[in-house]
């Protein structure tokens, strides 16, 4: 065969193939653009939750933990409250008309979720394996450590866990908290009361000598009575991961809350002012000894949302 002719034939075949492939790709692209998205969207997830269509969102918060969850002049304030507000707004519940804060004691956090009294709990709720069997957690949204707060007069006397075991000192903690379990594990005999606030009140009245709890909660009381107390840095060695409690029967809501926390985490990482950072700066920030950052939430689902197309920087 004439090589020139052969070349021209080859070329014609290549062109045919190229045309056919281009058309196929275009058709495939066209079909793909009309298909339902593979990833679930925030809106779809929201439809699966038990709060969909609910006129109000009820969030369980503490009302006696200064800086975290407190009631001041009838207004809920604190870091947990602000995080709760952010999550609620992202779920479509903004403003007092649509958001209800329910006061929940430390020991009532799980029953409140189980009994449907609240839709979410944002109240210094540490994530533990035990609790995970009863409720779901989204987060962590804060990592804190266990500390001990003593009256100023004892600040030179209590330095170690050994000192806490001394029967001369009465250690107080709140019931149903991770601190209670941790103290028990370390053979520290503690007097268990309902809330940390009761411990603080007790110390001020002379009934107890020290209170052990999360650093965040103690920082709140320190902020309230800066001259009366001192936080002692004890090597408990365990970190507390604070999470948002969600009813165990509502995995969609858990996913959504985790996704919302992740959004804030992403914003903070990109150097923008994240809702978390704003809440932190307004509440805990000035009172903690070390600067904290938002921890990366765990088990975050992949969801698509309307603002996904916005530039990341």
């Amino acid at each position, binding site marked *: 065969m004439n090589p020139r002719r052969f070349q021209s034939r080859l070329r014609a075949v290549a062109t045919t193939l*190229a045309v056919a492939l281009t058309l196929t790709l275009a058709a495939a692209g066209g079909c793909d653009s009309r298909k339902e998205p593979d990833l679930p969207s925030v809106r779809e997830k929201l439809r699966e939750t038990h709060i969909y269509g609910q006129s109000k969102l009820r969030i369980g918060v503490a009302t006696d933990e200064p800086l975290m969850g407190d009631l001041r002049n009838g207004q809920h304030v604190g870091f947990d409250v602000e995080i709760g507000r952010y999550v609620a707004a992202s779920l479509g519940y903004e403003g007092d008309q649509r958001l209800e804060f329910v006061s929940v004691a430390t020991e009532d956090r799980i029953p409140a979720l189980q009994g449907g009294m609240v839709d979410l709990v944002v109240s210094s709720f540490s994530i533990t394996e035990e609790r995970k069997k009863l409720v779901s957690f989204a987060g962590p949204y804060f990592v804190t450590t266990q500390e001990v707060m003593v009256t100023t007069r004892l600040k030179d006397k209590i330095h170690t866990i050994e000192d806490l075991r001394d029967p001369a000192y009465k250690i107080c903690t709140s019931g149903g908290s991770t601190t209670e379990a941790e103290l028990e594990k370390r053979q520290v005999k503690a007097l268990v009361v309902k809330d940390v606030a009761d411990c603080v009140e007790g110390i001020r009245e002379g009934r107890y000598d020290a209170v052990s709890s999360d650093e965040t909660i103690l920082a709140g009381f320190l902020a309230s009575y800066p001259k009366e107390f001192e936080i002692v840095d004890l090597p408990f060695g365990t970190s507390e991961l604070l999470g948002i409690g969600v009813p165990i029967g509502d995995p969609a809501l858990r996913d959504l809350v985790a996704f919302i926390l992740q959004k804030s985490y992403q914003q903070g990482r990109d150097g923008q002012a994240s809702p978390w950072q704003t809440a932190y700066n307004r509440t805990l920030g000035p009172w903690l000894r070390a600067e904290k950052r938002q921890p990366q939430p765990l088990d975050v689902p992949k969801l698509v949302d309307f603002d996904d197309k916005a530039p990341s920087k």
Partner: protein
Amino acid sequence: MSTAPTAIGGDSPVPPPRAAVPPDAGAVPAGWPAAVPVAEPAEPIADRAEPGRVRWDPAERRARASQSFWTAVVGVPAIFSVLRLGVEAGGELQTTLLLVANVGPVNLLAGFLTTAARLLSTGLVAVFALGAVLAVSADRLPPGTRRRPLFARWADVTPAWVVLASFLLALLTWPLLYLPLLLPAFVAAFQLRPERLHERHLPRVLLIVALLAGYGWLLLPTLRDATAQREWLVLALVVVPPLLAVFIAGPLPGMVIRPLATVTEVAVLAMLVWAAVPVISTPVLPLTVTTVGAPGGPTEDVRGHVITTDDVNMVILQERGGVRYVPVDLVRAQVLCPSEEELPRHRLRIHDFHVEDSLLEGMGRRVRPVHRIDAACRAPG
């Protein structure tokens, strides 16, 4: 219209009466100014016409084509817009009439063009690219084939600037993900063979390799993400088209032309109809959520499109259907919300431009980067 029996159109400049044409068709009729050409068609008309079929004078044919073109340009959007109103109203006559009464024609047309520019440019690009490929292959048609394929004829009569403008429109309105397909289409439409790059073989190959490498380098991060996310179609849509662009220019084998012409004509038509459905069903009015409630009392979110507002009422076409007249005094707040069709389908970016954004949209997002969906938009309708 096609049964108009004569080539001597009533409105056209009067050519010399056919009956008066002397047997010698090339001769200038008596009394005709010597410098003025006779408006005689290049080929005789009546004597070669098939029975029952009238052949048109090319000039008149062009005039008619232009007339139909402009009719289509004005008519199609108008008809589509009215159809859209009907769909938007949920098929209710009274609601349609309410919309007709309140949506201005200019708004309607602008709204239509905003949503239809992508469809329009896709249709044009497809026709011109296929037309050019078929046109360059037309001389290889099997003997005895008289008519050139339709798209080839369209591509022949279209000025280059129209083709270029269609490609520009596509470049601005297509999602970035599909832009690579524009490359083989462009090469095909203008029949840019690789030989144009350089007359010698080796530099030509090197140039092509360099161009492809540059393209690959530009898209490498996206390709990596697409592989990680197992988005094989995206991968194919980005990688394959530039390679095809190297081979796409040139004539097709004779035997392929006719089937290709027929299949693509049907396919393009089907594509236009198929793609027109979402254009018709895209809302004409923006989606809002209006918070309604008496001062101090409970509030309610009304999700829908605001048709009009006067001193007394705000008229809202609810998303779930039905029209609601809300007294203006009760309106507490109103926010603009995205619709579900705007949800992205992929999680890929090309240098921070989302792959489903067009260049225009991507640039827009850079001008107004912050977009947070308002809490009220999450509220159920």
